[in-house]
């Protein structure tokens, strides 16, 4: 029983960690609080399902394409919508309010589009839905694959941020956007890349969610909410923190769903959020700022 919860929780946590990584990049580096993040995830999930049902294309094959498309979409969104807001704010606190409002509008825009295109019904596909035994616990293969994708993408990002020059620039902009230009970093460019990469991660997470979860056009808010809570728990802009917090939330949610009631998982998320806010608002792994 305990092992089951543990393994299923870790597997779910992998997806959450991936979701949160994208958001933490967008908020930490591009300084955009993206309330339409869950909708970006949903777009990718719906596209993957449409490819699978329409052309029999395996989600694993469409995933790289969807991730690239996510990057392009994020790049365009930043260029068209966010850049003017950044320019208007002039580095002041206005950007936070403006980005929240603009992406709140974007949320409804995308949601409306998804409702028109795909309808309001719950969607799911059955792909590689056979059990694999791990330590005596039967886990669906599709969940394991999703878990693998999250581990690979997450680890690649952590290593890239730690070791490459590009990663160094990203971290510089995340830390002090005002001083980064002094050492010759093009903040606008890095912020755009951060936002686009965040969208690519959202798309990847959406593709892996579509393999094993049931979802609907109106469910984006819940994804955004969970990703936000994980980001806060891990400390804003803290990539390893977001990974750890993602796993923690997956475990907690699986525990609540099996031991108490599946209908209360969001309540559990909120309870954790409240605890973190009251106890360590800088995040479980963040230093005091």
């Amino acid at each position: 029983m305990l092992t089951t919860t543990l393994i299923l929780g870790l597997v779910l946590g992998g997806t959450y960690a991936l979701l949160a990584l994208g958001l933490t990049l967008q908020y930490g580096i591009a300084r955009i609080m993206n309330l339409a993040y869950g909708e970006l995830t949903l777009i990718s999930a719906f596209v993957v399902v449409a490819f699978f049902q329409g052309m029999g294309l395996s989600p694993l094959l469409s995933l790289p394409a969807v991730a690239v498309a996510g990057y392009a979409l994020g790049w365009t969104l930043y260029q068209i919508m966010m850049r003017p807001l950044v320019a208007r704010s002039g580095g002041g606190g206005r950007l936070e309010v403006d980005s929240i409002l603009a992406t709140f509008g974007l949320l409804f825009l995308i949601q409306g589009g998804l409702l028109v295109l795909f309808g309001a019904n719950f969607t799911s596909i059955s792909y590689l839905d056979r059990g694999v035994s791990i330590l005596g616990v039967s886990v669906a293969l599709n969940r394991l694959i999703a878990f693998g994708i999250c581990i690979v993408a997450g680890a690649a990002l952590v290593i890239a941020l730690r070791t490459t020059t590009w990663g160094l620039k990203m971290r510089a902009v995340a830390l002090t956007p005002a001083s980064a230009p002094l050492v010759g970093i093009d903040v606008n460019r890095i912020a755009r890349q951060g936002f686009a990469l965040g969208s690519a991660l959202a798309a990847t997470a959406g593709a892996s969610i579509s393999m094993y979860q049931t979802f609907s056009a109106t469910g984006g808010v819940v994804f955004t909410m969970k990703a936000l809570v994980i980001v806060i728990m891990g400390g804003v802009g803290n990539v390893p923190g977001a990974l750890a917090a993602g796993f923690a939330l997956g475990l907690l949610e699986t525990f609540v769903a099996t031991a108490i009631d599946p209908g209360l998982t969001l309540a559990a998320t909120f309870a954790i959020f409240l605890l973190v806010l009251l106890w360590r608002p800088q995040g479980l792994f963040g230093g005091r700022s």
Partner: protein
Amino acid sequence: MIRILLPLIGLGLLALGPMVVSDYGLGLLIGAATYVTLASAWALFSGQTHYISLATVAFYGTGAYTVAVLNEALPYGAVLICAALIGGAMALVVGLSTLRLRGVYFVIFSFGLAELVRQVITWYEVNVTGTLGRYIFLDITTRQIYWQMLALGAVTIALTAWINRSRLGLALRVIGDDETVATHSGINLARVKLVAFVLSAVILTLAGAITSPRYVYVEPAIVFNPTVSFLTVIMALLGGANRLWGPALGAVPLFLVFEWLSSNFPDTYPIFLGLLFIGVVFLVPNGLISSAESLVSRKKEAGR
């Protein structure tokens, strides 16, 4: 004197409205009055402080649901008081835990609050009471609902006007401009924000409670409709959230537009909403009133 007299005359005329309009017209009047109240109450807190609350429907729905649960057990007046107390208590808990921190935490919390309340109520009703979906049978006519809502709206605007002139209003404006300055001026940040947030939440809850008899059948999925939060924010922003009459000015035309859109384009209507919202954020970031003012002053400059 004229600044008090004109609104009073307007209020009197509006109160006579039900005598001349049809039933459909009365429905529109109630809807418009509801959104004027919601947008003004939202702006009471969020307009000055720039703490964007996305939780309007969490309070509105709580109000409506309180009436649905208690309408057979208590007299109507007591039900309204209960609703106000519950809404106030909820705001107190949310405010105490989030308003001491940076604004973004409050926004995130308010973003998921309605969904949280909806899930918890649904869970409670399914597992504990076993009745999902309740009926409201109250002996209240549509006209009475309208008058109550009109009164609540008038009280909200009057309260905002009074707060704007009081120390509380000054403190809120300073907080909105610069929190660091506010702290150094000796303003108790958390308390000022909390007072305004609770006041605003109580009004939102009451608005939900007053309109609830119009639903007749109430279910969490119906009263916790996120579109209400969305509309409230965009209405207040369009008119100008930091002006006394801004939210009301934005609410009336947008309510009519939305009403028309939702009956003529029921499927594509969220797309229009999203586009409109983005348009407001980009084109009239400070609201129509201040845009008009700057246009007028620019004309004057040019005329000189």
